[in-house]
């Protein structure tokens, strides 16, 4: 029997706002324990949450970029449970009425595009973390670090529209790229600012009903998500083929062993007793606000790839490489605006130097000037590479360095004639042989001229002048 998998993904993305979602504390990562806390995010008596407007705007922009319907009224609820990393003993999260519903994003799959539905996007606050003294089991003490408490998150829930681990990976990467393009999330999976849980089930191909699903957690890279999905699909198929059934459970990905394992301990059937948080008014979003935010949506990755490939004369492959970062694509476009020339060369340069671009070590002029000087013969390919490296090291403009280091090449035929004449005069025998048909000697003369000019002559021009003089 042939099986197919049904995959839905839940992404928790940390919004890159300056402050937390319900207080003015910094939302920055990596501060000393409990440094970024105040009475509000540590759940002291009598304090109240005040919604961060920026966090709302970031979520609305995400909703618009994923074609979701932004809801005019959404409501924050309390999800009640006891845990030492949750100071209020409830998490404020949108529940019945989320901020956005029913969107989609398109991914590349099997050479075409496939549309993956987005069920909902809602806002919520993060919890803190516990630090255990020694191993978790039998720890002598546990300490709470509440820095992460109330850091703003948005949860993006997909429809169960993916059928393969590759589609899951493609969806995640595309979603991450969109969030990074919007500058609403840094997309860093390792630091936990972009987290993914997966719901997976399998069913005989052609069957309409879904199989029993397992929820996968603890996957902290795109690759791990794909590997965990692959493993879990295989496991479920084997289970069924062996005459067994799939249990509805939460499983953790063990990246070291490359397996999913059931979450330890019996899962408690939680009753979170959700109810609307009386401390927060319903969130009302009017059309004017949405329209204003719509104007801030930049060109998104899919559109950018299509435009660069169709209008800039570069390959789709290069367009995708350039569009992997909004900054890199912008850099490329700025560079070809300064010097058009052959955009393929500019694209290759931008891709080659992408780390320096990301680090802000070179400007679009650097690449534009390097490409222009090479195409007009002012510098050699080697000199071009040397010069960009020098720009990165010194921060000086490329053309200034070219002069300082004497890396221009002589491309003026007139200026080379004298040297060429001198070289021919100094090697009469070789000149004779060349004229008698030993064409291979041309490279000997080129070498001599290059030596005489200390490598600054443009070899192409040297050849032309030599041919004329020797001819």
């Amino acid at each position: 029997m042939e099986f197919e998998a049904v995959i839905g993904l839940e992404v928790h993305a940390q919004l890159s706002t300056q402050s937390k979602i319900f207080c003015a504390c910094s939302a920055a990562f990596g501060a000393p324990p409990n440094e970024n806390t105040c009475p509000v995010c540590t759940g002291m008596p009598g304090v109240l949450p005040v919604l961060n407007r920026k966090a709302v705007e970031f979520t609305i922009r995400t909703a618009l970029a994923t074609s979701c319907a932004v809801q005019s009224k959404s409501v924050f609820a309390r999800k009640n449970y006891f845990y030492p990393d949750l100071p209020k003993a409830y998490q404020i999260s949108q529940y019945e009425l989320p901020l956005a519903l029913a969107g989609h994003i398109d991914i590349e799959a099997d050479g075409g595009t496939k549309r993956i539905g987005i069920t909902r996007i809602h806002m919520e606050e993060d919890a803190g973390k516990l630090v255990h003294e020694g191993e978790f089991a039998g720890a002598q003490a546990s300490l709470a670090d509440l820095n992460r408490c109330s850091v703003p998150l948005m949860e993006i829930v997909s429809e169960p529209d993916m059928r393969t681990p590759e589609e899951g990976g493609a969806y995640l990467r595309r979603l991450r790229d969109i969030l990074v393009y919007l500058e609403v999330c840094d997309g860093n999976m390792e630091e936990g600012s972009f987290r993914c849980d997966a719901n997976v089930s399998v069913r005989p191909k052609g069957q309409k009903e879904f199989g029993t699903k397992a929820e996968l957690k603890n996957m902290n890279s795109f690759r791990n998500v794909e590997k965990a999905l692959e493993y879990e699909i295989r496991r479920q198929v084997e289970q069924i083929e062996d005459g067994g059934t799939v249990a509805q459970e939460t499983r953790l990905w063990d990246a070291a062993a490359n397996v999913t394992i059931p979450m330890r301990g019996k899962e408690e059937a939680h009753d979170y007793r959700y109810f609307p948080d009386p401390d927060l008014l319903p969130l009302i979003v009017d059309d004017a606000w949405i329209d204003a935010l719509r104007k801030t949506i930049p060109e998104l990755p899919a559109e950018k790839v299509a435009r660069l490939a169709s209008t800039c004369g570069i390959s789709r492959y290069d367009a995708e490489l350039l569009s992997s970062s909004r900054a890199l694509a912008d850099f490329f476009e700025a560079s070809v605006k300064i010097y058009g020339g052959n955009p393929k060369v500019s694209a290759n340069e931008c891709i080659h130097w992408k780390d320096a671009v990301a680090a802000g070590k070179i400007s679009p002029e650097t690449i534009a000037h390097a490409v222009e000087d090479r195409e007009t013969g002012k510098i050699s390919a080697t000199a071009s590479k040397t010069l960009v490296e020098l720009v990165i090291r010194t921060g000086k403009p490329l053309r200034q360095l070219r002069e300082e280091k004497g890396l221009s090449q002589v491309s003026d035929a007139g200026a080379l004639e004298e040297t060429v004449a001198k070289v021919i005069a100094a090697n009469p025998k070789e000149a004779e042989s060349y004229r008698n048909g030993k064409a291979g000697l041309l490279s000997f003369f080129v070498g001599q001229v290059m030596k005489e000019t200390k490598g600054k002559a443009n070899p192409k021009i040297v050849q032309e002048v030599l041919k004329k003089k020797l001819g």
Partner: protein
Amino acid sequence: MHEWTLQEAARKVRDKEISSRELTRALLDRIERINPKINAYVTVLHDKAMAEATARDETQAKGEALGVLHGVPLGLKDIFCTRGIRTTCGSRILSYFLPPYDAAVAEKVAASGAVLLGKHNMDEFAMGSSTETSHFGPTRNPWATGRIPGGSSGGTAAAVAAGLCYAGVGTDTGGSIRQPASLCGVVGVKPTYGRVSRYGMIAFASSLDQGGPVTRTVPDAAMMLGVIAGHDRRDSTSVDLPVPDYPAAAERPVKGMKVGLPREYFEVEGLDPAVRGAMEKALDALVVQGAQAVEISLPHTSFAVATYYIIAPAEASSNLARYDGVRYGYRAKVAGGLIEMMSRTRAEGFGAEVKRRIMIGTYALSAGYYEAYYGKAQKVRTLIRRDFDAAFAKVDAILTPTSPTPAFRLGEKTGDPLTMYLSDIFTIPCNLAGIPGISVPCGMSAEGLPIGAQLLAGHFREETLFTAAAAIERALPHPPVAPLEGA
């Protein structure tokens, strides 16, 4: 001098007839003598209050601008967080809690120039109608120390009635300011929901809680509300409306005001004849001064108590979940793990009434019961609000008793929570509707126990309340301070 009104005391300090130090010293001395009899204060700030009074006098000597309550000693219900000053909420679980911040109300009172004498006793987490659930022992009624002062702001009402401060600020979730004000013969105001910031006011039921003044006269209450009202960005439910000149409203004539008498409130079983008699006097006082009485109906009144006892415990069960012994407050000494520590902390830290309400609320919110209880209660709440909207289309204010009976005896109702809950039957609908209410003294029972009249008005119509309550007060003057034996 303890019998002066708040306005008198403020004027005398301003006119340098008396210094803040003298006034504060006199009240601290009086607290020292009287408080052991009634237990109105859980914390008295002897040194801090004197230091504050000294600073006020120095400010005045320098000729700097003075706040409206400059140098006047006041008290706050121990539900308002005060920076570096123990804030217990009447509970063992917060018996050593030192807040690192001030409640908005505490800030406003300090900004007005007042001097904080101490923190008033209260029912634990404001859950109670008699101040008997306090971990720090019950407060007694200054008019009859064998009786309860009402609750949950019983400490505040008793302190004001006994002349242990010129004014206090309490909180009212289902009558917790108005009912003790009525039972102690003082004035208490429950402002419109959103009028006074809840920031730093320890939450009982967030959608119902509201801070408000307790004073000995209506103009004092108006003055005090002017100090504590106003928008606060730290409270999302606080409303951004200008604060009117409330004291001016207390001087306006009541002539032409339409006063509604809700049929359902006077049909309540167990309405004490003395209360009924006092209400007739209050109505007469208004009519004589030119107000017009109109009979009205608030048809959903009989559902109010049941609705309240679902919504308030539900919110409380969530609000009180944070007291787990992890970060602050009482922590049980146990050798076991996390769950045992949390369970024991809460078992030992909370009293019986608080536990009862946490259980009711947890049940009302649980899966499978939510719609039948919490969902239904919210719908009834809307109907109760509509009752009032319809009524205020016809009348300016509504007159009712505040409490069905005068103060009952200590221990009389502690064994019977349901009877206790019914003592808030007249005050609860106002919180459910979010409208303002006031209790003003309007007579005495045969045993010499105070009786209060409640006036209600539409949202943000506190001025109407002050106008009508001042008219009752002018016609039916009451003694300034309870005549405590040996005081």
